[in-house]
Structures are given as C-alpha cells and as structure tokens.
C-alpha cells in the first residue's frame, strides 16, 4: 500500500494545456491553477501570473484559472492595468464543454500579454483555501486524484489546527507539470512541516519543532549493549533567518518580490554566544508565502528551535531492536554517564530519530537522535503511602527505572 501511494506521489502530474481548446494561441501553454490570496504582493502595474490565450477568435479569450474561482480579478498587459471594460470575466465557464474554468473574453485586444491577480480556489463553504494543510488536502483530493482514505485525517487535522493557530496562509500558482511530492514538499516545507506515507499507504503530515504537547516514544532503545556519544555542532545553530517571499509566478518575471533580513526575529543572546548564524543556504526562499507576518512567524520558529546547538546523541545498538525506528519517531534512551543541563543522569531521555543506519553484517544499528530535552515521567498513586513532605514531585519527575 505504502509503495503504491509513494509511486503515485512521484508520478508526474500533467498540467492541463491550452491544446484542449479549438483555437489556442499556443497549445502547449499550461492553464494556471491559482491558490490562496494572490492579491497581497504585486508589482507596479503587473499581475502575479500569466494567462494563456486559449481562443484567438476576435480580440481573444484568456484563461484566468484552470478551475472556477470567485471574487475580484484584476488583469494587466504590457501597458499596465487593463480597463475592466475591455473584457468580460466569466469565473465559472464550461469553456467549449471542456470543464469549468475562469475566462476573460476581450473586446479590445490586450498589449502583448495578460497577467492576473485574484484569490484562488475556495472550499464548499465559500471560504478561501489558504491554510497550508487545507491547501495540501485540496490538491491531493481535487487536483491529483487521491481519495480521502489515502490521507491521514488525524495528522492532517493536527497540522491544520497548528497552522491556523500560527496564522499561516499559503498562496501560489501551479502552471507546469510536476510530481505531487515536489509540490507537497515545497508547500509544507515553507511552513516547516513535512509529509510521509505510513505503512497503510496514507499520507501523514508532520510539523517539526512542535513538542509542547505530549510526546509518544515508539521505541525504548535497549540500554545494556549500547555505545553512545553526544555531539554539539556549531553548524546546527541558526539565530537569524533572512527570507525571500512574495513570488511572482509569471514566466515573464519569476522573481521573489519581498525580502526580510530576519533582524526582527533574530536571537541576540544566541548571536552573542555563537556569532551571527544564518541558514546554510544564506536565506530561505518561501515561494508559498506572501504575507510579512507569516514570514516573520516562520523566521521566529526556526530561530526558536535552532538558536542553541542541537544535542545529537548517537547510539550503536547491537541488539538490533532499534531497527524498527523510523525517521522522525521519538525514542526513549538511557545513557547514564551523560548529563543534562541540570546535571541529571540521562535516564529515559526522549530523542527524535534523525537517522537509522543498520549494518546487518556487523549486526548493529546506529541511531542518531536529537535530544528533545524531555524525558519519561512518573506519577504517584495517592494511595496513602506517600508523605507530602516536599521531597518529591507528585508527577513530572524523571522516571529513573532502566527498562532494558
């Protein structure tokens, strides 16, 4: 099941082309598929994406969106904003019986090209789809043809709630052939999330760095036969994140229109300790972000997570039990000689699996774990056997029992 879903995610999606219509200007032009609010960043007298001429009859008919949309649309040509009187919009037009699209039929021929700004696809309730999780769901179900059973609703719902709380809004235009996984990675990656296919073949969503809720380790790393080491690396520190956002999707432009140097969201204390540390590529390029507040939230989340060097624990397990762990899983481990920042022995510490490297010849598995700083905790049963003398925590204390 999982392999089949992965295969479909990597199969190229063929963007709808103008050739489906009887008299296009260029049959190879792809129809634009706009999502989210594309009105927030625009150039001077320019649109955000290019509209193909799908009918050359008269002054021409242009495709504004490859599906039906609602709301205000502005069109631009080589001379700037086109007077609305020069064209007739039909935002839900079953053009030539080939399916519903949004069109602009011109009475006066535009100058050179037509670009548009608009708000993209809406949901059944008429609300603009701009939550990145909802957008991913929309594309999975209604663009790429996955079924609702192939989407893990629990992780989707969790991601949607988180994105909503963070105020995330995504917007972008698809106008070329692509593999669904590439678009999903780009979309979710912009918002520090990712996806994976579970063994049942469902597409599950993950948002990195959210460990404020409960963590459920899937593995207790055997502690008797392990060799361990811990690393801190300066290269893992990021305390300022310059970003580019507000992409113009027109083939005539293609540039990112907004830049934020990350000064607002930087961590001054971390910079004092480790110097100014930027992402390895210098700046992040957020193609699906058009809103400054969203860009700054993303900057702040990256800095919050990476302002200190990652504590990476590498464990070599010769029992092979750790082979069941997967990337991103949480695992509890015990390395008694390691110390926490409170000088506690590292017993039942929880790490997130960064990599699993099995060596079946040597019969061992090497796990690399990011120390979350959290640990398995105990709770005391109030059965009359405890004296509340202030000597222990009722709950939340470190579980010091070594289980394996």
């Amino acid at each position, binding site marked *: 099941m999982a392999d089949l879903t992965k295969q479909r995610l990597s199969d190229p999606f063929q963007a709808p082309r103008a050739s489906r219509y009887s008299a296009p200007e260029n049959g190879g032009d792809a129809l634009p598929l706009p999502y989210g609010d594309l009105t927030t960043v625009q150039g001077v007298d320019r649109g955000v994406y290019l509209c193909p001429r799908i009918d050359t009859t008269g002054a021409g008919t242009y495709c504004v969106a490859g599906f039906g949309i609602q709301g205000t649309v502005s069109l631009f040509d080589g001379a700037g904003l086109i007077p609305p009187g020069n064209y007739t919009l039909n935002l839900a037009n079953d053009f030539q019986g080939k399916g519903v699209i949004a069109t602009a039929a011109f009475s006066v021929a535009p100058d050179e090209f037509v670009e548009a700004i608009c708000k993209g696809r809406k949901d059944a309730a008429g609300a603009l789809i701009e939550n990145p999780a909802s957008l991913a769901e929309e594309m999975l179900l209604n663009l790429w043809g996955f079924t609702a059973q192939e989407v893990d609703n629990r992780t989707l719902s969790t991601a949607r709630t988180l994105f909503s709380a963070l105020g995330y809004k995504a917007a972008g235009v698809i106008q070329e052939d692509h593999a669904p996984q590439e678009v999903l990675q780009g979309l979710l990656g912009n918002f520090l999330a990712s996806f994976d296919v579970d063994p049942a073949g469902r597409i599950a969503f993950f948002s990195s760095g959210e460990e404020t809720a409960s963590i459920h380790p899937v593995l207790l790393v055997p502690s008797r036969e392990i060799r*361990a080491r*811990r*690393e801190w690396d300066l290269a893992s520190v990021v305390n300022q994140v310059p970003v580019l956002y507000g992409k113009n999707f027109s083939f005539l432009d293609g540039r990112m229109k907004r830049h934020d140097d990350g000064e607002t969201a930087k961590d001054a204390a971390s910079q*004092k*300790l480790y110097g100014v540390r930027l992402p390895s590529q210098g700046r992040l390029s957020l193609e699906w972000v058009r809103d400054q507040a969203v860009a700054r939230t993303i900057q702040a989340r990256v800095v919050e997570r990476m302002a200190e060097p990652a504590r990476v624990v590498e464990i070599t397990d010769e029992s092979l039990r750790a082979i069941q762990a997967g990337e991103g899983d949480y695992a509890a481990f015990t390395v008694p*000689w390691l110390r926490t920042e409170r*000088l506690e022995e590292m017993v039942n510490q929880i790490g997130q699996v960064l990599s699993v490297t099995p060596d079946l010849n040597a019969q061992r598995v090497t796990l690399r774990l990011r120390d979350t700083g959290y640990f398995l905790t105990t709770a005391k049963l109030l059965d009359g056997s405890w004296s509340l003398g202030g000597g222990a925590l009722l709950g939340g204390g470190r579980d010091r029992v070594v289980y394996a």
Partner: protein
Amino acid sequence: MKPASLAFLNEMEKHGDLNQALVLFALSNANGVRFFCRRGIPEALVGQSGGVWFLDGTWVLDGSVKLGEDSEALLGLHDWVLDGGAYSQGRFLGLNPLDLFARNELSTLSLRLSNEPDAEGHPRMSRIAATEPLVNARLDVRAGFEGQTLADVLQLASFRVTRVVERKEDVTLECEAA
C-alpha cells in the same frame, strides 16, 4: 618581537630543546576561562583580564550585551589533556612548540580531554559540556615554562570550537583557526 617573546626565546635557549615547555589550552566562553594542560598548571602562568560594568543607569539591558562583558572569570585549571592534536609531543615537526609557532599555520585542531568521573561522580567534561556553552568558545594555545610568569607566556595560536564530541572516556573539541 615583543619583550615577552624575547624572554621566552632566551628561556628556551637556556633550557635547550628538552620539551620543558608547558602547552596551555585556554578555553574561553561566556562563563569564563578554563585552562587545560597535560600536567598541573602553575598559577603564575595563568592571567586574568577584563573589566567590570557598573550598573549606574547607563546600560540598557535589552539582550544586546552581557553584564561583565570582557571580564574573564577563571573557572578552573585542569590537567586533563589526553591529546593536544598537532601540539602533542611526537607530532611536532621538530621537538618544541616553537616549530609550529615559527610556521604559524594550523588551520584545525582536535583537543581530546579526559572525561573521568570527578569527586562527585559526574564525568568531568560531560558536566562542563552540559552547563557551559563550549561550541564557538575561543581556544588559545599558549606555551610557558614552569618557574616563569604570565609575562613570559607565549601565544601560539587561536581557534574556535566548532564541534564537541562527548564519549564516556573522553571529550574532543574540534576547532578551526580563529
């Protein structure tokens, strides 16, 4: 050449190439400075410097500066060096550290320190690594002679700690030239 360096060279001449120099690794981070050596370090070879900020209302505590910045708290003198990388005996091109000093070029350094348990049972470097920011700390390599003073200590090279690898037996500070 500075008078201190001249004095040092004179001292080297007096002692000959008999490896009498102590190689000192001074690790400075936000908490203070620690000195590491293969042998016990005479306090006379360790200096402190810096300033104290008076809280007289002229400083804005907005996170951009640290109180006591540039002051240097001495955190410890430790004879925990297991392997000083290129500065270890036997890895010199010649017999004394000044060969390296003369060549003046080392782009990287790996300093391996013992992680044996301390008096309280904590692995001593693990304890430090858990509570002090070692990454990006400055590591100065200095050379001096027993019986001499701070004025005769010679600065050989400076590095920045880029990676810390902690094992049960030892902790390695991987450094790049500052």
